[in-house]
């Protein structure tokens, strides 16, 4: 088995690392986009009375459809109907972002709604402008409260990113499966990939935990967890 390990894993470290890089790249952009879309959907839902229904529809759709279905839909349907995305990577990023944006929108909403009204009132009483209130009083507090759940979505993005191999995005999973199909010796390669993903996700959850504890003790803010 060690011999196999050398033959299939170590020999292909380059390709596998390339795959890991693509995974990281896709996850990073998808996560960022998810936060942006989630925030927009959340704010539309909370503040714009007419567009509210659209936002809710969007959120429910993103949360109810399985990621695989979204991936295939964005990849095959969108170019025909909307004209973009033109690359599979783009499709992967958008699909992953869509999925998480739904959950994030709801997370942000519960964060905003959970903020004590007194915060806003105190700031208004001191004479702060609306923008300043949001940026310096509300957003940071909401941010601290929702942080664990947001980081959780990063983990979800990473886990779902394994599926982008289906639309030929050369991520870690894709490279691994390519090697397996080439040599048909799956044990070492797949186990290594599984452990790599585990290590990545475990690290994310540990960092999230430490950050949570750190901010808890520093600011003493009750969290939704």
């Amino acid at each position, binding site marked *: 088995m060690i011999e196999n390990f050398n033959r299939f894993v170590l020999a292909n470290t380059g390709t596998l690392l390339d795959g890991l890089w693509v995974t990281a790249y896709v996850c990073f952009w998808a996560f960022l986009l998810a936060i942006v879309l989630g925030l927009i959907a959340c704010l539309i839902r909370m503040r714009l009375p007419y567009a509210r229904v659209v936002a809710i529809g969007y959120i429910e759709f993103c949360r109810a459809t399985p*990621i695989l279905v979204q991936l295939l839909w964005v990849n095959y349907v969108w170019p025909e109907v909307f004209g973009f995305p033109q690359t599979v990577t783009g499709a992967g990023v958008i699909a992953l972002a869509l999925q998480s944006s739904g959950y994030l929108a709801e997370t942000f909403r519960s964060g905003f709604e959970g903020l004590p009204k007194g915060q806003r009132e105190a700031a208004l009483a001191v004479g702060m402008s609306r923008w300043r209130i949001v940026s310096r009083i509300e957003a940071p507090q909401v941010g601290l409260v929702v942080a664990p759940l947001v980081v959780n979505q990063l983990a979800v993005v990473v*886990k779902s990113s394994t599926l982008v191999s289906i639309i030929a995005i050369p991520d870690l*999973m894709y490279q691994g499966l390519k090697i397996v199909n080439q040599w048909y010796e*799956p044990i070492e390669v797949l186990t290594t990939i*599984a452990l790599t993903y585990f290590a990545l996700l475990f690290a994310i959850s540990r960092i999230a935990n430490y950050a949570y504890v750190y901010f808890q003790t520093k600011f003493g803010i009750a969290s939704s967890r």
Partner: protein
Amino acid sequence: MFVALQNVFDPALFWEYRAVLLTGLLQNIIIFAESAVLAIFLAFIVGIASLSRHGPVRWTAVAYAEFFRNTPEYVLLVWVYFVLPLIIGTALGTKANLSPHVAAVIGLGVAYSGFLSETVRAGLRSVSYGQTESALSLGMSGFTALRRIVLPQAVRRMLPEAVNQLVSLFKSTTIVSLIAVQDIMYQVSMISVAEMRPVPLYTGAALLYCIVIIVATQLFQRLTERWRRRGWA
């Protein structure tokens, strides 16, 4: 414009292939049910073990939960399908084979048992220890106290979160199409290849899932509300 719409969403096409699609959906439901049973079974074992007095038992349970919560389902699925038969084969000295269906059930069941074990654990911990103490003080064994006093209360508290997990599980059954289980997504792919019209089919699939999941979620939310009002959860 109407023609263009038909390019995007074509219920007629779905209707034409309804038999095949429904059989596919049935596969999803069956795999969901089987892996749910496996996941719940494992979750209770691991969840209860994670609260054990014995260190090693506890650590194994915690490690199990951490591992399966932090490993992507697709990776597990592929691993179970390709690697597990080889390992079993080497251990038993024969060549073993795992059908896609069985691999799917094992893979998904094990993957979700990690999350559900946390739900079980949280549910058990939410029952105050005084409940167990009063049972013990009357002469009940720990096991009887668990069975008659703690579990009934804990299960009711686990239900909302467990339902969320099971909805996720149902959504995840789509990935079994990737190891050649003939579920609905598999059929959709086949049809779109045959028809050369992927667009309406994938849109249709997305909408179908959307409706099914939303309906199911609403249903469960109503149910849990009713339970909560009756003072159960």
